[in-house]
């Protein structure tokens, strides 16, 4: 029985990769452009924004939380960065834009740490934050589509292969931070067992705040790269990105239960989600039906996570 479970678990753990490989081969046969050099560059570019965003999300999920507001942080940061870079110049403009992300993240983090909420509360609080930021993005922009007119550091952040480099440098830094430092250890501890972490003297409130602030900062970075890449901003630019980031994390194997997963998992997930989106585009499947696929992917990935683990008794005191 034990053995059978183990084999099932093994298959389930790699099922995503197996299914994905078959899918890639099938798409490559149907649509030759899928494996062209141009398209691979294209995929890399698309991956980078989701990838940067997923780095922030990984911190939050590893700590046992979720953040639904990252997409709307991207929207508002995109608008702010266009305005500030045009009026203040590159460096101050970028700093202000990053500060907006940090501010939103810090507010979320402080609220979450004050109420010592669990996964459920983080869903609701960041859902509210998403609504606030999305509406603020509309207010700040006046609902208008804005074009970038500057050339400089900001506009070079999204051209050529720069987004890829930013993503790769960021993910390496994050990986080192999470796996090689005391801070990272404590974040795992917080995610695995918040009560034990607190009882063993870790300032859990501080860590909750840090994690959300970090996520806000990284989301702002993703917003800047996206805005620079498309050289324009609109108040809906970030809509739905949070779902891509969450799917990338869980598909890659970062557990929603917290305390489990590294940035290697994130990288795997980002590649899978990025290529999936690209394949669907090439096959001529439009945005709307793609949403149906995305919804199923999230549930499927999390179900597999549930299968590969021995059935847990629910954590004591877990809200919902």
């Amino acid at each position, binding site marked *: 029985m034990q053995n059978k479970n183990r084999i099932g678990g093994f298959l389930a753990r790699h099922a995503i990769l197996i299914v994905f490989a078959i899918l890639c081969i099938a798409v490559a046969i149907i649509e030759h452009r899928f494996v062209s050099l141009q398209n691979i560059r294209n995929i890399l570019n698309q991956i980078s924004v989701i990838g940067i965003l997923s780095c922030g999300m990984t911190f939050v999920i590893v700590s046992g939380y979720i953040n639904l507001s990252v997409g709307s942080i991207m929207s508002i940061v995109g608008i702010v960065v266009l305005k500030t870079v045009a009026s203040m110049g590159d460096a101050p403009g970028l700093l202000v834009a990053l500060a907006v992300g940090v501010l939103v993240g810090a507010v979320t983090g402080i609220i979450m740490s004050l109420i010592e909420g669990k996964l459920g509360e983080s869903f609701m609080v960041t859902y509210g934050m998403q*609504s*606030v930021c999305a*509406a603020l993005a509309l207010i700040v922009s006046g609902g208008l589509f804005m074009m970038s007119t500057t050339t400089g550091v900001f506009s070079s952040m999204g051209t050529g292969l720069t987004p890829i480099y930013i993503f790769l440098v960021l993910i390496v830094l994050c990986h080192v931070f999470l796996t090689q430092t005391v801070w990272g250890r404590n974040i795992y501890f917080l995610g695995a067992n918040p009560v034990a972490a607190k009882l063993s003297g870790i300032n859990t409130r501080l860590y909750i705040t840090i994690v959300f602030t970090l996520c806000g900062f990284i989301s702002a970075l993703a917003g800047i790269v996206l805005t620079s890449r498309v050289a324009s901003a609109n108040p809906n630019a970030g809509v739905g990105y949070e779902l891509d980031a969450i799917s990338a994390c869980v598909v890659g194997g970062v557990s929603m239960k917290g305390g489990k997963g590294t940035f290697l998992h994130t990288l795997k997930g980002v590649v899978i989600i990025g290529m999936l989106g690209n394949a669907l585009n090439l096959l001529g499947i439009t945005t709307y039906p793609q949403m149906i696929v995305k919804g199923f992917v999230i549930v499927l990935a999390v179900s597999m996570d549930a*299968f590969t683990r021995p059935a847990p008794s629910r954590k004591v005191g877990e809200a919902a």
Partner: protein
Amino acid sequence: MNRHKLVHLLKNNIVVVALLLIVAVMALVSNTFLTAANIQNIFGQIAINGIVAFGMTYAIICGEFDLSCGSLLAVVTILFIDLSKRAGIPAAVLVCLLTGFVVGLVNGLLVSKLKISAFVVTLGMMVALKGVALSYTQGKPINYINDSLYAFGNGSLWGIQNIVFFFLIVFVAAEIILRFTKFGRNLYATGGNQTAAKMAGIRVDFYKTSIFVIIGLVTALAGIIMACRTGAGNSLFGGDLSMTVVSAVVIGGSSLSGGRGNAIKTFFGMLVLGVLFNALMILGVQANWQDVIKGAILILVIALDATFARGRKKLGRA
């Protein structure tokens, strides 16, 4: 002693106090606020969301939650409009209710049998259903004014709008089931302490599944009413439904940690929100700022609820 009683009374009915406060202030500020037309207006505005709110009350009492109801509402309006045009009204009603039932069942089974967090399951469902609604209509609203349906959705009887009757019927039914039936009692037990409920022989999985089915059904009902009222099926309907509804339930005083709450509380929570946003509209607050306020209210009530829940736990009354 008497003062204590008063404080206690105020604390337990803080929503009613807030409601009276807003009404008092608005009655002074605006002379259109306390008119029969505006009061009808407020009830008309909260009726559709309110129907879903009673379903959500069940979920929250049971310690669960549903994010997907907004997208389901959009799908149902589209289905209802399209089918009533093509296949007739009875078939449309049947298919819509069935859709709600199936969506709820899928959510419920994934949560209760696979033990996946309801947040994740319903998040996935929310995205998938939104995709269905958008694909079905290509993002454009579909209009169809059937005279009898439109008359039903916008008519009124004895000065009360038809849709408000539905709201009140669902309200009374929800409260009676919670208060006087075995189903209601077991729901509180499941939400209050799942392990204890299981030990006591309550089929926890059944209750967890059934609350999602209930939400699916009431959302389908709300969607049908919405379609009749507007004469349109639109993928944008229900965008902030789950947020409004959860705010209302928690403002009323039901707790996200489960085991507490009832339909009367939700009724007042819904009324406070309805009156508040009506007041904002009368005061001329821009729609975008109203969204900011909506989000902030949700954050605030969740934060307060979590803080109170911790306090109860410390006192051993969790």
